[in-house]
């Protein structure tokens, strides 16, 4: 039996980045870490797309080359603090699928939030006017991530290795970072169950009332999410902070 178009979770993750208002077909740049590209082997609109793979500062960079499997894809390599090999105002869409979470893995920083902000500001320079920067981050304030961090803090004395994702951003700090970096018309969504196989995206909008948050919940009953997840969401929706439970955040903003 053949697979349906959005049956693989990764196809749904790609569909996320078709949602923002972008000039069609447009030029797309994906910035990611080695082995984590979302678009490398995907059907994607537009004539050419570029993938920029980020490396540690002291890494020896591989050569720029077209993709083996798709001649419409060019893969570049750069270090986090080195020059990005693109001209200003080049792209209509820049995609950061989980990249901001992993910046601290590439270069030590005392302040991962301001580091993310500086990085976004550099990327905005590559965007054409009215271009869109979109991405996903782990939600620092989600209950799952809070518990994960607490468990690690408790166990690190026993020599446990730290979690691979630092998840420095929450919905609020991600919005602030995007705004201060210069993006406008920012929209934020909580993703269920996560960014790699989304089933539902709820816009995080402070103006949204509790009643809308509760209505959104009606479509999210078990078995779509676990009973515990549903119970916690319901409780938080009642208090008007339901989005805090989402493990991943999807956002986009426009260059003025």
């Amino acid at each position, binding site marked *: *039996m053949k*697979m*349906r*178009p*959005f*049956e693989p979770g990764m196809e*749904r993750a790609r*569909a996320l980045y*078709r*949602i*923002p*208002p972008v000039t*069609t077909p447009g030029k797309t740049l994906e910035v990611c870490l080695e082995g984590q590209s979302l678009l490398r082997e995907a059907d994607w*609109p537009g004539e050419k797309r570029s993938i920029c793979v980020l490396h540690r500062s002291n890494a020896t960079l591989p050569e720029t080359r077209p993709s083996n499997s798709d001649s419409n894809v060019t893969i570049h390599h750069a270090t986090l603090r080195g020059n990005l090999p693109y001209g200003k105002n080049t792209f209509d869409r820049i995609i950061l699928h989980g990249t901001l979470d992993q910046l601290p893995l590439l270069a030590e920083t005392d302040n991962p939030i301001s580091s993310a902000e500086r990085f976004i500001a550099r990327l905005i320079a590559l965007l054409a006017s009215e271009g869109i920067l979109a991405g996903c981050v782990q939600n620092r304030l989600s209950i799952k991530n809070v518990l994960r961090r607490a468990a690690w803090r408790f166990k690190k004395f026993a020599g446990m290795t730290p979690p691979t994702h630092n998840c420095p951003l929450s919905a609020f700090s991600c919005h602030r970072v995007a705004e201060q970096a210069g993006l406008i*018309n920012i*929209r934020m*969504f909580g993703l269920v169950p996560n960014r790699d196989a*989304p*089933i*539902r*995206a*709820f*816009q995080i*909008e402070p*103006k*949204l*009332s509790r*009643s*809308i948050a509760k*209505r*959104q919940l*009606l*479509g999210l009953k078990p078995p779509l999410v676990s009973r515990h997840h549903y119970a916690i969401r319901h409780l938080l929706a009642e208090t008007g902070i339901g989005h805090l439970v989402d493990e991943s955040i999807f956002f986009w903003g426009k260059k003025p």
Partner: protein
Amino acid sequence: MIELIEELLIEKKLTDHTEKLAFDIIFTTGSCLLFNAFLDDNKFYHFKVTEIDDLYPEYQLYKEARELFGDYTPNIIGFLRKNGWDIVLTEGIHHRVLSPSRLMKDKSDLTPEIINFLRLMTEKRGAATSKNGHNAFIHELYDHFSSTQFANVVKPWLDNRKIESLPHIRQHGDFAVNNIAESGSKLVIFDWEDFGKITLPGFDLCILLASVLQYDDQEILRFISDPRPKHSALSNLLNISKEVAGIAPLLFKELIPLYLTIFLYLKKDYGTSIQKNVGNLISLLDGLSENIMQGINAV
């Protein structure tokens, strides 16, 4: 594509402040994304969006269903095709999907509403004339399944006079319990994209029964072979099948494996789980159908 959704809302004069919209997005495993755009606490609009399928025929079917069945269907508002995307816009309905357990109660308060709806569908059969008879459709079905185990289910019904003499009644096509909802005191039926593709009477009733019984072969067998049906809402529905669905109860029971095979045919592009579940169910029911029918005939 969100700018197209906002454009459609503005074109239909449903809002002029797109920045105030808040979205809830559902990722199907098919080829569509579904959007709910909330304007305020009491109003929202529903969008089906795809760049793979042609949604215009579906838009027309929804319009036709709305004309025929009024408030039983969502209010279809508009269609937009632009930049490779197809978008269908309907008015959002605050609703609660029916649970199978509610329809299995002895005195389900919803059965009269469902009977009314099925009766209305049967009454509107005037528009449902088919150029080809039922037999032509059964041949098409047989050709489709000819190299599979389901050919054995279809074969006995080829050129069958009982089937050919049945009226043509346009069926909803996916009258499963998850597509039936309560909105206030009214019943609302969703997912009209297969409306009228099947005109064999009793098909919708069969899908309703099978979905209420959660496609469980033992439950379905027990239900159709019980000589003294309990006074459940489902049994009552079955007893008046001639009146509400245009087919006698006995023939309806005989046709259940065929109905399920037709369902599989309609859902050939759908998910693997539904194909597997319904396929297993057909195999089990067909293997036992002779015994069941002997039991039913004895009664």
